[in-house]
């Protein structure tokens, strides 16, 4: 169970022959993911550690039947890589690359959404982009399409995890793991201002997933994604949701590493996010370990 990826997912890696692409391809394989091929334009025909390399996503899909692509292409070509995968009708595209220009992401996200709508209109599976600047996805015990450390996922469980931050995703996954609860699927949505999939997009998937009992949302300052999530939870979710907000002590006007993590005027303040979650009856943990207590309490209600 879980959402988005599972043991049957067939994954191609765009940028497999690069340093990051290569090491994470190996780690995903170790995890048990079906990594079926790599795409590096100009290196088509190469055998890379047993994986066939193709010149294009379309060729790789044709040859392998891949239905997920993970992208490690450097920033200048990353949005183009997303569009290539989307036009090849890969239903799930995960962009790991950090540092992609925001304007490129605006254009890519808009085009992916148009392709998604077109595909669905014609009875297709649609096209979804996750990220960029994200750690990817893990469905515990089945598949990892991302860069999370394998060893924090020893204990499959029934808690869904969604996060804007990479390292805090690991932190939360490990806490849940060590507390004996474990995760169903982990979704790192990414820390950039313009991303393909938001909290509010993922929540309905967890709500519908039989393998998930409760959801942990790891937010941070900046933007209004947490507020949108709270709004959705209030109107649509029956499963309990627990939240955490990072950067509560950050000053306004300073960008905290993530391009999206900045308080501008009244937008993106922790107060606004806390109020929104309170209004949606979502408990917010003050510290990360408290997440565990709140999840336990929510499940016992």
């Amino acid at each position, binding site marked *: 169970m879980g959402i988005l990826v599972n043991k049957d997912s067939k994954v191609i890696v765009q940028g497999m022959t690069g340093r990051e692409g290569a090491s994470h391809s190996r780690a995903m394989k170790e995890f048990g993911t079906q990594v079926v091929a790599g795409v590096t334009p100009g290196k088509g025909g190469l055998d890379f550690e047993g994986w066939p390399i193709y010149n294009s996503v379309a060729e790789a899909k044709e040859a392998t039947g891949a239905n997920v692509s993970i992208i490690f292409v450097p920033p200048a070509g990353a949005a183009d890589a997303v569009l290539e995968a989307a036009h090849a009708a890969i239903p799930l595209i995960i962009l790991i690359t950090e540092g992609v220009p*925001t*304007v490129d992401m605006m254009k890519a996200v808009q085009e992916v959404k148009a392709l998604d709508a077109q595909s669905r209109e014609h009875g297709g599976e649609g096209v979804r982009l996750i990220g960029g600047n994200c750690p990817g996805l893990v469905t515990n015990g089945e598949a990892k399409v991302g860069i999370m450390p394998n060893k924090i996922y020893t204990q499959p469980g029934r808690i869904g995890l969604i996060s*804007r931050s990479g390292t805090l995703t690991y932190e939360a996954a490990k806490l849940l793991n060590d507390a004996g609860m474990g995760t169903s699927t982990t979704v790192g949505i990414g820390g950039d201002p313009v991303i393909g999939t938001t909290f509010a997009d993922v929540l309905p998937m967890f709500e519908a997933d039989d393998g998930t009992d409760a959801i942990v949302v790891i937010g941070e300052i900046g933007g209004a994604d947490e507020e949108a999530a709270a709004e959705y939870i209030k109107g649509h979710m029956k499963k309990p949701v627990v939240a955490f907000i990072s*950067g509560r002590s950050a000053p306004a006007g300073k960008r905290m590493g993530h391009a999206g993590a900045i308080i501008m*005027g009244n937008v993106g303040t922790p107060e606004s996010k806390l109020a929104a979650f309170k209004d949606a009856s979502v408990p917010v943990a003050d510290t990360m370990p408290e997440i565990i207590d709140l999840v336990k309490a929510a499940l016992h209600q």
Partner: protein
Amino acid sequence: MKLHEYQGKEILRQFGVNVQEGRVAKTPDEVRQIARDYGQSVVVKAQVHVGGRGKAGGVKFSADPDKAFENGEKILGMDIKGLTVNKVLVTRAVDIDAGVEYYIGMIVDRNVQSFTLMASAEGGVDIEEVAAETPEKIVHYRVDPITGLRPYEAREVAIQAGFKGNLNKIADMMVKLSQAALERDAVLVEINPLFVDASGTPIALDTKFEIDDNAMYRHKDLADWREMEAEHPLEIEASKYGFAYVKLDDGNVGVLGNGAGIVMTSLDVVNRAGAKPANFLDIGGGAKAEIVYNAVKLVSKDKDVKAIFINIFGGITRADEVAKGVIQALQDGILTKPVRMRIAGTAEEEAKALLAEVNSPLIQMFPNMFDAAAEAAKEANK
């Protein structure tokens, strides 16, 4: 990257925006000469990367060249919120009473996954004040990032905002603003005030322009505009190492970690422990000993820092590499302040062994981030 007013105006001019004429001066004599050349009253404006320069006395109307010289003397060298004014922009003054002041701006808006064009007939004032007090006076419009703003859309927004004057010319300025934002990778670009004179012609009197750092690689022509003196010296040094570093005011604990999220949370934890973080420093993923060494060196240079809190959750980052970097800094005499760290994950045991070997009271390791932060806070508050 933030641009100065004169730089933002230069870009807008390249896109055909009608910008109020002005020239940059670095001495009071140059200010006087520009005023003479213009042969009319001028405004002398400090070029410095902080908000509220007008309130701080950094913008002055000057009726004649001698008055301009005098104002140039006052403003050049002035300190505004900790930054010294080295340059002023001298522009032709306009008779504000003979026209109206509007606001237009393009801003990256994650909620619409594109730029939002904002337009308001309440120009000339801080738009955040308008947004807070009378939000209904600002029109918001999502701009299609692929097509850019089209003239009919611009006219529609101008009408909704209640703009008076030559509708086509004002709409044209909005279209050009959109082009500038998309082609120059703006995070934010504002024209405020957008002055519409008695004949109905729009003129950009002031602008704010900020460019996406991730896109600087394709704007090499603007690289020279990065003003080192306008940033904190430690931030400049950090950028040389490729660190995401932010200097924070009134702090006493240096903070570093691997990943923006964990560092942000580390700041929160230091605050909870009763101390104040002096900086944000993300060493990134997979950092080797040398990077950690440089990070410790950088944070140690900060006079505000009394103790250092290191928070690492190692996935691709190896804990032993972190330990090696810290130990090297200690052995080179760079590290003189207490380091309290939490390192979890890959090669944690190797890191412990290395630290045990060195056995210095300056470096202590803790199993969780709260204990490490509490100890760092205790040291810093001593």
